[in-house]
């Protein structure tokens, strides 16, 4: 009873905060840089509200059970708490659902960056067999046109008549909503950018220094002088899950090369074939160096967006720290910034405290729910 109350209060808090952001023309939370807005999809309150509604709508799936919010649940910090995402009929994909919070700061979307924008990303799951499972976008447009509210909302948001509505408008609205799903003002932000020297514990303060130096996190999970996105928007190989493909690597690489020549359907294949999925960025660029590389995720709210890694294989932050401490998983394509760290137990503990200090206040209640 208490849990449900807390959840409801939290969701209300999140949405009211986002509404404020929409109204105020996006006041930036402490520690965040301005949100990049594309020229062809400017923000307006109607578009944002429409996007939120579309985001929550379960009818845009083959059996009407899956919406964006299924895997990106606002009550779970916009993830699903599962190692691997599950779509219609609980079909499993191959990858962990990234959080939408602060995804607006990524220059590409998906773990392998195969979508160049939030708009492009939103198009994928609708027609992926293991996600929403639709055959094409037609059912979505049909539902929208027949719906009592949508046509008016689209008219208010885009100034277009129902017969002009396309999937592009749908994803533009969703993207506009996602650009308000940003969060800063964590204890770290208040310490670092707000001048509050007591905002973080002593341990977390030590952890920040370790983050910058011995643990070598800074170069990929970037903190700046005036704001921090905690990502470099690049792709790196940590070796997680690599052992699944290493024995047959050459064979799989050849398979992908040939398939791409014939016009490989990237989005579908990546989420259905584990061995293809594990190739990471390579499937997009066909550059040998990109084998096993995945995008650096933001660390904001990391304490409440587990499990971790592209395959959700690490349950806890302690395990994540241990992975880096041992120097990743050795493999021929391991990123050259990864190496054994030789952290002491105290340093690991301090680093953990620092990571926990990256949780924004609206998601803090979730931190108490996380089981160790």
């Amino acid at each position, binding site marked *: 009873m208490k849990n449900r109350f807390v959840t409801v209060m939290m969701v209300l808090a999140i949405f009211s905060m986002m509404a404020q952001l929409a109204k105020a023309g996006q006041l930036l939370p402490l520690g965040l840089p301005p949100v990049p807005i594309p020229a062809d999809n400017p923000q307006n309150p109607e578009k944002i509200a429409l996007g939120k509604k579309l985001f929550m709508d379960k009818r845009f799936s083959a059996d009407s059970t899956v919406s964006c919010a299924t895997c990106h649940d606002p009550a779970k910090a916009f993830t699903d708490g599962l190692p691997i995402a599950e779509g219609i009929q609980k079909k499993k994909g191959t990858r962990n659902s990234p959080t939408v919070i602060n995804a607006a700061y990524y220059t590409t979307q998906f773990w392998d960056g195969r979508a160049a924008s939030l708009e492009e990303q939103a198009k994928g799951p609708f027609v992926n067999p293991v996600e929403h499972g639709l055959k094409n976008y037609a059912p979505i447009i049909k539902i929208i046109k027949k719906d009592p509210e949508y046509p008016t909302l689209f008219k208010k948001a885009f100034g277009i008549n129902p017969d002009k509505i396309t999937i592009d408008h749908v994803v533009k609205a969703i993207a506009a909503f996602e650009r308000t799903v940003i969060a800063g003002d964590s204890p770290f932000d208040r310490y670092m950018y707000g001048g509050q020297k007591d905002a973080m514990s002593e341990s977390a303060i030590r952890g920040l220094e370790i983050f*910058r*130096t*011995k643990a*070598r996190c*800074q*170069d990929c999970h*970037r*903190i*700046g*002088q005036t704001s921090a996105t905690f990502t470099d928007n690049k792709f790196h190989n940590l070796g997680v899950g690599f052992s699944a493909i290493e024995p047959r690597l050459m064979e799989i690489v050849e398979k992908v090369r040939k398939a791409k020549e014939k016009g490989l359907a990237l989005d579908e294949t990546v989420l259905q074939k584990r061995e293809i999925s594990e190739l990471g960025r390579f499937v997009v660029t066909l550059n040998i160096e990109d084998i096993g590389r995945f995008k650096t995720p933001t660390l904001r709210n990391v304490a409440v967006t587990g499990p971790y890694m592209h395959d959700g294989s690490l349950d806890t932050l302690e395990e994540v720290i241990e992975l880096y401490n041992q120097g990743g998983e050795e493999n021929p394509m391991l990123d050259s910034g990864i190496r054994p760290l030789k952290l002491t137990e105290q340093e690991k503990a301090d680093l953990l405290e620092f990571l926990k200090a990256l949780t924004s206040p609206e998601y803090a209640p979730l931190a108490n729910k996380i089981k160790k």
Partner: protein
Amino acid sequence: MKRVLIIVCMTAFIGTGLVGISSADEFTKKDLEKWNKEFMSVVKEGEKLFHSALGSNKVSCDMCHPNASNTHPETYPKFQKQIGKVVALRDMINWCIQNPLEGKPLKLDDPKMIALEAYITYERRGKPLEPGKH
């Protein structure tokens, strides 16, 4: 009475001038030579350190920075991407010791640090300051 006071003050003033008590920064050519030698001895010390394995693997600074090239001492303090904030040269020296050289950082006032800075800046002598340049 006033007149007496003035005379006394002026006497004191001239007197001290004649006696030669000075508070200016006086130095001779010999001093300059001597102090330069002391500086160069620390530069030499820095050169030795720069060409030795300061960390735990066998790597030395000069392997990537022959003659301290590509260290750009004239650009510090600056925002150092690898550290995530504005730092001084010695902070980056410590970063290099900890990372490519896999060693322990020096204390900021360690004589070794001063020596390294002396050598690095000496090899870059003549370059105008460009603080903040990436």
